[in-house]
Each structure stands twice: as C-alpha cells, then as structure tokens.
C-alpha cells in the first residue's frame, strides 16, 4: 500500500485485495445475482477498476442494455438520499 500526504494512493489491485476483499466478494456476488454477469468477471473488474467504475461505466465490463439498466438502478437504490433524508 502506498501513501501520499497520509492518504492511500491509487486504488490499485494490491490495495483492493489488502483491505477490501470481503467487500468486493460480497458486492460481486450480489450484483451477479441481479445482473447475471458472471461473479468472477465482476470480482476481477471491481478489483482492477473499482465498484464505482462498474456502476458509472457498465459498458466497460461488457454489460448489455438490460444489465446496464439494472446496474444504474442498483446504484440509485443503494445511493438513495439516505444522507439527506435519513441515516440507516
């Protein structure tokens, strides 16, 4: 892991594995269930590019139109105004 001004530098592959394997694994499993994109493909993608990139640019993983819609909706669902309206 690398640091710059006390913060983690670059969300690179090794950094993701170090700190977030469980999160990535869970996210990939759930997203795969909804989109039917293979779990391993999602996991590898999140490790390399990040979950935010997956939600923002589904075309990068080769999602079709239906899967893209699901990913956009999932992001909207989990990003819903909890901070504005409520806190879970």
């Amino acid at each position, binding site marked *: 892991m*690398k640091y*710059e001004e006390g*913060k*983690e*530098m*670059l*969300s*690179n592959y*090794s*950094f993701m594995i170090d*700190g*977030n394997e469980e*999160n*990535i694994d*869970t*996210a990939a499993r*759930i*997203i795969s*269930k*909804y989109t039917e994109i293979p779990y391993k493909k999602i996991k590898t993608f*999140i490790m390399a*590019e*990040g*979950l*935010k*990139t997956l939600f923002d*640019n589904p*075309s*990068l993983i080769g999602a079709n139109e239906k899967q893209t819609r699901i990913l956009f*909706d*999932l*992001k*909207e*669902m*989990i*990003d*819903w*105004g*909890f901070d504005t*309206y*409520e*806190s*879970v």
Partner: protein
Amino acid sequence: MNQYSKDLDRFVELLAKFTGISKSKINSFLEYNSVSTIFEHPASLSPKAEHIDKINDLKLLRNCYLNLKSHDMEYVLNSSSKAGDYFVNFFMDYKDKEKFVCSFLDNKNRVIATSIMSEGTVNSAFVFPRELLKKAICYDACSVILSHNHPGGSTNPSKEDVDVTNRIAKVLSEVDIKVLDHIIVGGDRYLSMAEGGYINTQTLVGNRVIENGSEYGIKGNNPSLKKRKRQMNYEMQL
C-alpha cells in the same frame, strides 16, 4: 409534489423491482415507518424469507459500496508536479519492467481511471494509439496524461518517446481529447515532457501550468517553466 415525495416514489419503485414486494405494500408500510426501518428490520415489511433475503442483500451491497467508496481517493492532476508525484508513486511497485500507463481525466482533470496500456522488457514498451483511443472513449475522458517508467533510472526522453506522444496526441485530437503531458519516471524522479518543452505545444493545450484546476495548461507559445526557471537562476546569479 415536493422533492422528497418524488425521491421516495423512486425509492419505492426500485425497492419493488429488486425485492418483488408490491409497491402498495411498501407505500402502506412507509406511511407509519421510515425507510431505515425496512433495512434494519426487514421482517416488519414482509415476513417472507425470500423478501427478507433480498432486502438484506441490498443492505449488504450498500454497506460494501460505502466501504469501498470511502477508500476511493479523488485525484486531480492539474499540474505537472501533481502528475509527476502521482506517477512516481504509481511506478513504485513496477521497477522491473518498462510499463506505459495512461490516466484518463474528466473535464476538471480528475482521474477517472489509470490503466496500464502496455508492458515491455527492461528497456522498451509498445503502445497502440488505437487501444488508448478505445479506452479514452469508454471512460468518457476529456483529456489524458501519459506516463512510462525507465527501469534504468534515467528520465531523459528518447526520440521514440517524443514521437509516440505526438502520434497519440494527433489521434486523440480527432475526438477532442487532449494529451496534457507525458511523464517519464526513473526511480524517484520524473520529467514532465510538457514542462520540458519536448512536446509540440501546437498539438497539446500548452505547457504552462495553472492551478485553478480547470485546465492543465493554456493555449499559446508561453515560455516553458524550465526556460523561466533557467532565467530566474540566471537573474539570481547576477
């Protein structure tokens, strides 16, 4: 209908879509309960095991998303010094082989992604402008910063380095994507080709750095920083 009602409607719609619980049931529940209650006590909305599992999945996904998001740093590469530091750090783990990487930036010079475009031997790396163009379009990039490392430690650009930069800049300019700089990393040091005046400023945006974050450089034939530094040193000596 106020914003909260609109947002709540959308929430109900999405929750119904992902859990299979009817909208009317969710709406009735929310008349006397909060959205948080659904995630904290899913059984209070629906006692069915399949519904509870799906709500728990969404809650888990949200937690994972927030955890991963909190680790995502936002990098703004609006100056050659920031770009230099960024790539020196990036190449810290890659000292064995020459690698060619590209940072794809949005319109505020924030890094969307940084990808390794090619890997070479200890002293060469090949890069294909076509592949770079494909990625830049996929990422909706407004500009890019190129970088490669010299495992030998030198930061002097070769003729090939200059040629490949200009070739990439030409290809990307066709789709209005700017090549802001090409950083060469050798060990802990770096050289900015834009700052050093190695890159054709007619092709690139410019070589002067402004710190407002909106642009890496400005148009025109401004004297390079290197030239200005040299001038300042000369003046100090006098």
